[in-house]
């Protein structure tokens, strides 16, 4: 039933899912140690609104600096929109953290839902306007890996490989920054550079992940592999490699399932595969149920 065909669409989809899973899984370890996993939910909702606002602007004839986008595809334009939306969302969240005594998680989950509401209002108003504009927008709700064009795939390959390379290169510094930023400040390197490096990675990968996984499930490819790898090991380097491996494996299997079964979109199948891997390792892994039971018997 499940087969890997040689068609261009299928190959693009498989490669992009594996690459995204690998890089997002490796980055997700640092994010989950910084306790920012709900924030990614909010960021993906922000990118959704950003895409829609840029669509609306382009329908009104307002192109932002058209000589950049005249050469490339409209899809890159939507990618720019999602990055703009994420940046706007980050500023909103940072202002709200400082001026409030509410817990940050309440603000994050509230703003997620509110931004989704704004996006859905925009979607319905776009659909009323009619025309060819509303054709590609439903993709962003649950994600579709086949919607990637050739240029976009090229873009994705560059970003994900750069993220993986830089994470491996700066691993030692990033470890200190993530675990204890005060110790990192006493040693002689630029701490804020590494903090902002993680932030730039997050912005780029969330924008890609919204396109592939959908708005609601964009967080799962970051968080689930990292938590799964945490069950198997205690050292951060091993956890990072394992998490990248789990993410890539889940992305690959999920893409194959989504390509072969008609009613399933890729974000849902990838999340299901990752969740099954999490539940299996919850039972079997050395820190899971089995390990706890054996340690209890001793």
């Amino acid at each position, binding site marked *: 039933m499940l087969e890997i065909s040689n068609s261009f669409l299928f190959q693009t989809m498989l490669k992009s899912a594996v690459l995204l899973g690998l890089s997002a899984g490796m980055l997700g370890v640092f994010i*989950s140690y910084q*306790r920012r*996993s*709900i924030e990614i*939910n909010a960021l993906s909702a922000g990118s959704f609104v950003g895409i829609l606002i840029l669509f609306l602007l382009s329908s009104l004839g307002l192109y932002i600096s058209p000589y950049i986008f005249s050469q490339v595809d409209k899809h890159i334009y939507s990618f720019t929109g999602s990055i703009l939306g994420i940046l706007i969302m980050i500023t909103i969240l940072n202002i*709200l953290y400082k*001026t*409030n*005594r*509410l*817990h940050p*998680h*309440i*603000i994050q*989950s*509230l*703003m*997620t*839902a*509110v*931004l*989704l*509401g*704004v*996006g*859905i*209002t925009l*979607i*319905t*108003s776009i659909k*009323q306007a009619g025309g060819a504009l509303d054709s590609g927008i439903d993709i962003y*709700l*649950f994600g579709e890996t086949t919607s990637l064009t050739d240029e976009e795939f090229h873009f994705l390959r560059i970003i994900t490989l750069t993220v993986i390379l830089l994470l491996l290169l700066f691993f030692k510094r990033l470890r200190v920054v993530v675990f204890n930023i005060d110790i990192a400040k006493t040693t002689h390197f630029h701490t804020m550079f590494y903090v902002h490096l993680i932030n730039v990675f997050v912005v780029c990968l969330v924008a890609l992940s919204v396109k592939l996984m959908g708005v*609601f*499930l964009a*967080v*799962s490819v970051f*968080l*689930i592999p990292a*938590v799964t790898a*945490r*069950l198997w090991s205690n050292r951060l380097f091993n956890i990072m490699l394992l998490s990248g491996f789990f993410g890539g494996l889940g992305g690959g299997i999920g893409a194959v399932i989504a390509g072969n079964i008609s*009613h*399933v979109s890729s974000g*849902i199948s990838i*999340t*299901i595969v990752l*969740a099954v891997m*999490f*539940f299996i390792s*919850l039972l079997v892994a050395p*820190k*899971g*149920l089995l390990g*706890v039971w054996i340690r209890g018997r001793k």
Partner: protein
Amino acid sequence: MFSIEFEIVIVIILSAITCSIPGAFLVMRRNYYAADTTNRSAMLGIAVALIFSSYLSSPLVIILGSITSGLAMILIKKIKEFTSFRAKGLSIIISSAFLCFGILIAANLSFNNTTNFDLSIIYLGETAFTYFNRLRVFGVDIGSYALYAVSFVLVINIILVTVFYNEFKIDGVDKNYAASIEMKESTIDYLLLIMTSLSVSVSFQTAGIFMTSAFILGPAATALFYTKRLSTLAFVSVFISSVACLAGFGIAWPNEVSISGTIVSFLGVLFIVSVIFSPEEGLVKKYFDNLTAQKRLEEYIIMDILNSEIIDCREKHINEEISSSLKWKLMKVSYIMNKLKAENKIEIVQNKVQLTEEGKTILNKFLSAQHCFY
């Protein structure tokens, strides 16, 4: 019985009130992950129930939806016991797993593959369609089905809150005190769980399973800016949610955009407006507080200089002396001196500027409050 608009507005307002009652207690207890988890994992139960029944507001949907959302919360607690993970991360994993299985079932198995049903009603909500499921008693039309389901859950919520109000209050304000009088925390937990999951699975038609968390958290988080008492918190959040519903429906209905999206974005607008303009801790109030505090500090500095008599206190050149020693502008110093004189804090005795008795006591009070040595 009623017109279409009136009935839809009533369903929307009742479901918003139903959501905002447990939301007030959730925000009070800082149980923030419960809102997201319950409404995402209710998808599995809804999808399973839709295999057997064909319309969205049947009792089976409510029962199964609340059971799965409760199951997810219990699963999170059980996993948290033997691993080192936090509940927040676990809640995202488990709720997204439940959500994905639910969508898989709904897309492939529900409705027996015969009717072409748009699943986005479940995700995003469309209240206008609740009008078409009518409830008939002896062949007489007595209103839409969703109206009675929502009001039933609302009555359950109100009864639970009024009966267990003291327990909710003690547990929400001080957990240590609640433990010391041997009150069981788990009963309050489960009560809140029942209330939240029931109201989520009833009101998902209004807002959709992704935006119900705004219905739960939004009014309570907005109401926290205006009050600190628990009972008024509940009433204010009910008021805010109904205002948002009326305004959102009023904007959305004539323009034919999504009702749920408009209501939720209006809730967000209310939240941000109250962050800026709230009377006790708004941004505007903080800004003016900072301004007045700085001006008062300048007054105290000048009073301290006059008191210590470091400089020559003749009346003729007092302003120039102070402005040259502090390097402030002459206008500013003379303005402050005039203000001090008008408030009877300084006086002129034999061509010399002095503090009055009143000014001395005020200055001493200020200095003793500063805890620093001069």
